[in-house]
């Protein structure tokens, strides 16, 4: 019992987080930056932050994660990291030859107050940025928000630095996919392809963090949105932003900068979520939904109908990122399941809490929603009102083990299983995969607990 000290009794805590249900801004910024082709993310701070962020991403994706650091010393911690960043920019372009460098800050450089654009301008003035190469930046102080905020900030930076207004609009639609897995981005693209809609997706980490074994190490893998594409986002006919917290900032900035209108949707998880996404695409692009997608949809409905009695009334505890939680909660409710504990460590605001309340208002049980809660509280909630299924990142496995509850891994980080980078959760196909996961978890438990007499062969 690794968590044996977690008490059932819940005490009001105002200034203490135990086992956070989030991680820090730069991880999200680094992840987003890896979704630009030929980009080298750069962490402006000390080496420890960077090593932690790189290790986390490396372990989650089991892929090489390339990034650089300003490697602050005591001196730079006091006097600022200008000299370090200038030299780093020079080194990176000389040694690693990226198309662009995406600088994000850390707690330390934010506290010092380093002015990144000013330092970058100096680097340009000193000829340290070769012609046709770029340095972009996002401020990512970790005492604000979470990794989702960092992701959002870096995605917005792509708009701020590159989007250009054109004389006429193109037929493309921009997709801001939100903080989802490379597999999800791939699936979103597949759906758009099936509908015959040309898209620009940013960021796009597919084929960067889920690439094949090629026998060679590539510093800059094949995938990622390109700089010319980012420029053209300003000439698209519209933007679809998936997930409020991760994607609105970029979509809004693009609207303000280049007058590209945007539609904000939930992540396309589950039947309804995917329907909404496809419907919006259909509307903006003026196309029909192809039979292939209608067919997939039918398959998903078929599975749900075949198995609906296994979902009915099952209580679920979820912990993770806001955009994911909202979409998943709606999905679970639509399956007749009861999400009763919903916790995120990310400060997602009152509106988010209200949306979750709305999504769960038909659930016939008490529903605990804690926005800015931690894993400790989540565990306490589960102790007080046990559930049939847990959904969360790898850290939830300790709770699942102690409380002996079936558990599905979803979110960030997942250090101990594979699949998330290759198999999507979004779309109808992703939905089918997720249904399979839920059913496997529940049915494995039923089989395990069955007596000799009530063991079911046919389920």
């Amino acid at each position, binding site marked *: 019992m690794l968590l044996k000290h977690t008490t059932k009794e819940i005490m009001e805590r105002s200034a203490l987080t135990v086992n956070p249900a989030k991680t820090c801004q730069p991880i999200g910024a680094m992840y987003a930056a890896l979704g630009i082709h030929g980009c080298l993310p750069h962490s402006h701070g000390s080496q420890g932050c960077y*090593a932690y962020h790189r*290790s986390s991403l490396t372990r989650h994706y089991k892929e090489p994660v390339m990034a650089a650091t300003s490697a602050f010393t005591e001196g730079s911690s006091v006097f600022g990291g200008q000299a370090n960043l200038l030299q780093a920019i020079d080194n990176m372009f000389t040694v690693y030859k990226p198309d662009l460098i995406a600088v994000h800050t850390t707690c330390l450089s934010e506290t010092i107050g380093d002015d990144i654009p000013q330092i970058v301008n100096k680097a340009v003035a000193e000829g340290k940025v070769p012609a046709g190469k770029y340095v972009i930046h996002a401020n990512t102080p970790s005492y604000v928000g979470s990794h989702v905020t960092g992701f959002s900030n870096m995605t917005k930076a792509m708009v701020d630095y590159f989007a250009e207004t054109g004389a006429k609009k193109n037929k493309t639609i921009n997709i801001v996919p939100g903080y989802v897995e490379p597999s999800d981005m791939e699936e979103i693209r597949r759906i758009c392809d099936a509908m015959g809609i040309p898209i620009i997706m940013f960021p796009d980490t597919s084929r960067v963090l889920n690439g094949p*074994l090629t026998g060679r*190490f590539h510093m800059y893998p094949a995938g990622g949105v390109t700089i010319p594409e980012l420029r053209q986002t300003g000439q698209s006919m519209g933007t679809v932003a998936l997930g409020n917290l991760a994607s609105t900032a970029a979509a809004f900035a693009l609207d303000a900068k280049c007058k590209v209108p945007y539609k904000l949707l939930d992540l396309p998880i589950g039947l309804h979520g995917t329907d909404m996404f496809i419907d919006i695409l259909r509307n903006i692009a003026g196309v029909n939904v192809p039979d292939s997608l209608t067919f997939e949809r039918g398959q998903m409905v078929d599975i749900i109908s075949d198995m609906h009695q296994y979902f009915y009334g099952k209580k679920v505890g979820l912990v993770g990122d806001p955009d994911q939680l909202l979409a998943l909660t709606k999905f679970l409710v639509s399956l007749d399941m009861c999400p009763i504990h919903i916790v995120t460590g990310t400060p997602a605001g009152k509106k988010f809490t209200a949306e979750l309340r709305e999504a769960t208002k038909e659930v016939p049980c008490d529903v605990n929603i804690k926005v800015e809660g931690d894993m400790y509280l989540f565990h306490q909630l589960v102790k007080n009102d046990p559930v049939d299924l847990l959904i969360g990142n790898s850290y939830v496995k300790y709770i699942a083990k102690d409380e002996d509850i079936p558990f599905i891994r979803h979110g960030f980080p997942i250090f101990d299983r594979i699949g998330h980078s290759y198999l999507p959760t979004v779309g109808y196909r992703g939905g089918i995969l997720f249904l399979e996961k839920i059913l496997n978890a529940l049915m494995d438990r039923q089989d395990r607990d069955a007596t000799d007499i009530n063991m079911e062969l046919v389920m």
Partner: protein
Amino acid sequence: MTGLAETMKEKYGIPFIRVSYFGIEDMAKALYDVAGHFKEQPEIMEKARELVRSEVTRIYPELQKIKARVCGKRAAIYVGGAFKAFSLIKALRYLGMEVVLAGSQTGNEKDYEILRDMCNDGTIILDDANPLELSKYIIEKNADLFIGGVKERPIAYKMGIGFCDHNHERKTPLAGFEGMLNFAEEVCQTVTSPVWQFAPHRSP
């Protein structure tokens, strides 16, 4: 660690010796060195000898089996401290493997002198290398195994070669005699894995 030991010697006059617990050779030497320090108690040396003998006898047969499978395979080592690299080189040699690349992040002049003395002429020695250099030389030297840190694991796999890591969070120890056996098993598992035949540059 050496810094701490030095300070303790300075402040409290407590003597120290630098040892490594990695690999049979160094582990045995560590025990002998410690025993040797207590000259007036020769029975300690006796016991150290006894311990080394019984431990080595215990793991020897298994190690020989592994050696037969990995003998002649080529290894690249890139670790934090050079001291660790020394032990790794000896341990790999013990298994009949060839070290084709050795390097560290923090080694000093003296470390590299030792490293150069330890290695063959053809071995590439790298100081504070970057992933591009590492991958270039690993391919060039046709290494079968890469020993490095957490973040290097996927790099090795992308190139289609085995990997063994040396990080602080491991739950299976690599230190001591038992650790040598774990290490050898890990190395053997990874370098002899059939998956590498599917790596593009290796398939015929």
